[in-house]
């Protein structure tokens, strides 16, 4: 005998008669859009905030350590090490944006006045702001404290971030469950390690070719992000094919 089920059924009351009328007339406060966006902050997992802080801390440590202990490596190697951290932030950001689509979560229940695209938009806005702040901090750090320059630092730091963000979003929109997390993690690790290995190898790639290649990858990443976000916000089709 399932006591829990029996308890629920044994104490079933008659249907409430005035519920609809009351709820239609209930003067409950309606959320404004800014309140709605802020309400979403508490649903973003702590790991995103922790990762953002850790990435900035690791970048500061790298620059400080290299300028003190290995001044000859303060140029490109430092920037590549810093840029190799961003794929993990990108992966977390993408997984966080896709989470609302993957599971029926509480925030969907609480925010039922807002549609799924609005909800995804709000979360993207928050996560995008956090990522922008982190990327800006890393770029300034590399640009000011290394001889690479702000423009080049921005390209090298943005490339892995945009690439992994695009790939992860595409993965999360195609696959369900833990598998998508693992695949996304592998892609972040691959991009992060390849950046360091390429820099560590003695391959002499001319700077303009390297920059053009990075810009091409940035464009590829951005286009993938835009297309996948469009697909995610058109949630109906997504749910139709994947649930």
């Amino acid at each position, binding site marked *: 005998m399932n006591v829990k089920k029996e308890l629920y059924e*044994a104490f079933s009351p008659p249907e409430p008669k005035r519920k609809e009328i009351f*709820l239609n007339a209930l003067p409950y406060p309606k959320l404004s859009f800014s309140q709605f966006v802020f309400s979403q902050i508490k649903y973003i997992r702590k790991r995103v905030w922790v990762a953002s802080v850790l990435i900035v801390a690791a970048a500061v440590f790298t620059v400080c350590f290299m300028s003190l202990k290995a001044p000859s490596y303060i140029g490109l190697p430092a920037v590549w090490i810093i840029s190799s951290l961003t794929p993990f932030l990108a992966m977390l950001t993408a997984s966080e944006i896709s989470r609302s689509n993957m599971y029926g979560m509480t925030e969907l*229940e609480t925010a*039922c006045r807002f549609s799924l695209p609005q909800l995804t938009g709000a979360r993207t806005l928050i996560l995008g702001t956090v990522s922008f702040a982190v990327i800006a901090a890393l770029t300034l750090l590399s640009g000011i404290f290394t001889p690479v320059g702000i423009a080049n630092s921005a390209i090298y730091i943005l490339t892995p971030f945009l690439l992994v963000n695009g790939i992860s979003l595409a993965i999360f929109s195609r696959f369900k469950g833990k598998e998508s997390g693992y695949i996304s993690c592998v892609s972040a690790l691959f991009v992060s390690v390849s950046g360091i290995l390429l820099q560590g190898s003695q391959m002499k790639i001319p700077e303009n070719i390297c920059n053009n290649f990075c810009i091409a990858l940035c464009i590829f990443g951005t286009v993938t992000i835009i297309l996948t976000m469009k697909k995610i916000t058109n949630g109906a089709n997504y749910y139709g094919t994947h649930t």
Partner: protein
Amino acid sequence: MLRKIEELYDKIYRYCFYRLRNSASAEDITQEAFLRYFAQNTDINAAYIFTIAKNLCTDMFRRKQTEELSDDYPTEDFSDKSDTKVEVRTALENLGEQHREVLVMRYIADMSVNETAETLGISRFAVYRLEKAALAQMKKLLKGALK
């Protein structure tokens, strides 16, 4: 938000009906709890609304005890009168007050552990512990009754 309020309405109504055994009064108190809550608050705090409803039920129950019951206040019973359901109801009434309250909130009103803990002013761990003990006692009582 409306969907959450709707769900909460059902939960509170179930709880109030359990306490009062009168659908009209249960609905009155459910609505009163919502109105009192939204007169002063902007977001939803299920435990807070439950606490208001619980206190209103207690007030009404006390009033009923001091007033003479008349035909104006008919008590209703739960619809299903099969043997098992009657035994379950009797077993629940035989539990201690704390155990009964936890089971009523968790399984009759369908509240979450968090909501139950906040409403009763105890920890989540205490809710789990009381719930486990209450369910074990219920099983024991039902085993004896249904033999």
